[in-house]
């Protein structure tokens, strides 16, 4: 047990010193802006329900990374919730597969008003590599209203942060 505490102690609080990835120098700055926007609009807290509507899972991996110790999106008041009933925002990935079309509509309907939809990743933005076909509806906006789009294949965590800010 002592070694565990030692490891925690020696690892330290990494979020205080966010290493600047070469292409994403503004994580902290964007986060602070995001926090201010969320404080203004949502009394300090923004609840996101993530919906994979047909992605390859690449976007999910980067959305997960938002919760790692470097990005720790919760410090900006943003948290992921398990139900659309608890959500202010739906963060939708993937081209919408036709088999997920009804599930996505129902998830959207289940979220209380007011609600926002962010299409995350190139597939969600425009259909990406998959487009529209017998099996795919393409962009999320073909199925439900979209308020903000985050391009990228997949968008890096810092881009996701910036994109969530873009909603306001």
């Amino acid at each position, binding site marked *: 047990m002592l070694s565990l505490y030692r490891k925690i102690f020696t690892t330290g609080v990494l979020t205080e010193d966010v290493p600047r990835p070469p292409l994403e120098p503004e994580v902290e700055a964007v986060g602070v802006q995001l926090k201010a926007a969320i404080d203004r609009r949502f009394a300090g807290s923004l609840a996101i329900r993530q919906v994979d509507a047909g992605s*390859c899972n690449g976007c*999910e991996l980067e959305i997960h990374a938002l919760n790692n110790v*470097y990005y720790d999106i919760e410090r900006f008041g943003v948290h992921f919730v398990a139900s659309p009933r608890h959500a202010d925002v739906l963060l939708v990935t993937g081209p919408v597969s*036709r088999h997920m079309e009804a599930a996505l509509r129902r998830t959207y309907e289940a979220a209380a008003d007011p609600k926002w939809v962010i299409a995350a990743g190139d597939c969600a933005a425009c259909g990406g590599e998959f487009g529209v*076909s017998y099996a795919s509806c393409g962009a999320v906006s073909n199925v439900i209203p979209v308020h903000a789009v985050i391009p990228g294949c997949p968008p890096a965590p810092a881009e996701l942060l910036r994109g969530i800010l873009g909603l306001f």
Partner: protein
Amino acid sequence: MHLAAVLQEQGIVVRPLQPSPLAPAELLEIDAFDWGRAAELAQPVGWRWVAAWAEDEGERLSVSACLEKHGGYTVLRTRVDSGHPALPSQAAYYVAADRPERHMQDLFGIRFSGHPDGRRWTRHQAWGEGSFPLRKAYPLAGTPPEQTPPDSGYPFLKAQGHGVYEIPVGPVHAGIIEPGHFRFQAVGEMVLNLEERLGYVHKGIEKLAEGRTPEALARLAGRVSGDTAVGHAFAACQAMERAAGIEAPARAAFIRGILAERERVANHLWDLGAICNDVGFAFANYQFGRLRELWLRDNLALFGHRLLMDRVVPGGAAVDVDGEGIKRMRASIAFLRRELDELLPILDANSSLEDRLLGAGVLSAEDAAALGALGFVGRASGQRFDVRHDAPYAPYDRFPVKVPLEEQGDVASRFWVRYKEIRVALRLLERLLEELPAGALTVPWQAPPAGAEGLGMVEGWRGEILCFVRFGADGAIGRYYPRDPSTVNWPALEKLIHGNIVPDFPVCNKSVNGSYSGQDL
């Protein structure tokens, strides 16, 4: 003994194609009525069922099934009439054939007689019964309704009895995870039965591949399953190169190996943390998440993409590594090894972690063998197969690959197999860097003649990935079939959850971590 000899001995007429157009795999043509019997004969003498796919040849449909024994691959092929395609099922002898045959039934309209479970599988409501998207005449755009209705009327298995209840989960799950549906029957907390219903992320990958250029196919392959961007692109390029009769240069092969091992490490790091998180041990989740993030940042700095998409291209690799990059990678390997050395005793000595992982979700060696379980799922249950070791391809034909093994088949075994696989991958990375040959990164692409086909087999981080490619006219892709290891491993989850408690499902599921996208296609 060659599969041909086994079948011939029992009176099956076998027509080997020589030289094999699918080399290094053998290709045997047999009559349709012998299809099921071939499986019946191959199964007891140790052939593993790998994959099956169909092709629309106009008047007829061809069906191919790939089997493997001791690292040797043999493809059986037969033809059936397009008007009334029917074939004896191989699923009666091989569990692994169950869903792939139903996938062909839904997308090609082939009826498999004697199939133990004739229900539809990939087909929900996006296309109607009686129309088959992978037939050539079916347009890519299809004829979709204004809105695709939700799936309904799927005949789930029912369990009845005093106190038995049912839990439907998904397709939208509680976490940040791909969509699928799980149907549990439980008594109290104990799971009596779990049935998976997948196909929610079916986005027509096989159809979408038709008519693509080789470069565009490699891009699509990198998105069959986002966490296996390198693995699937590697397999697709290997298949295309074999069809075209070209070979990626030695330096490109090494770069591919480096990318593949980096992908393995990144995914294992993530899952080790996630498994711990699912039993409430946040410490490990944050530690492994930290190490994964640093690893991904190295990917970005070294190769220009965190998940390494589009770095493997037909004829070679799209990225190189220079002296500075080699130095940086060596340093990060040493750093990761030191960190793991420190974390290992902490995890090992944590009795509450042990309580939750030991004995949970046991897949016995017999069941793993019967299912043909792959990758760390198979290897945690005593199945040693690893393409890098058993059917080595460049660059792994230069090094002996150590294959870690556990016997107990529980969540803990899958955890430790992955932990050890990281260590092996780090050593492999060092060797690949040490012996990185000089030279070109690509060879010029040469379009193969129409009809040329190729089979790729690589060890992705989840296990064996198989990929079939056939070229059509003008050097474009005529047919693409990628078989992700998840296709084989998903049924293992149904098996290993028996008798466990419902609250242990997340950690059992995570320890297998099947790809939904890679299975649904």
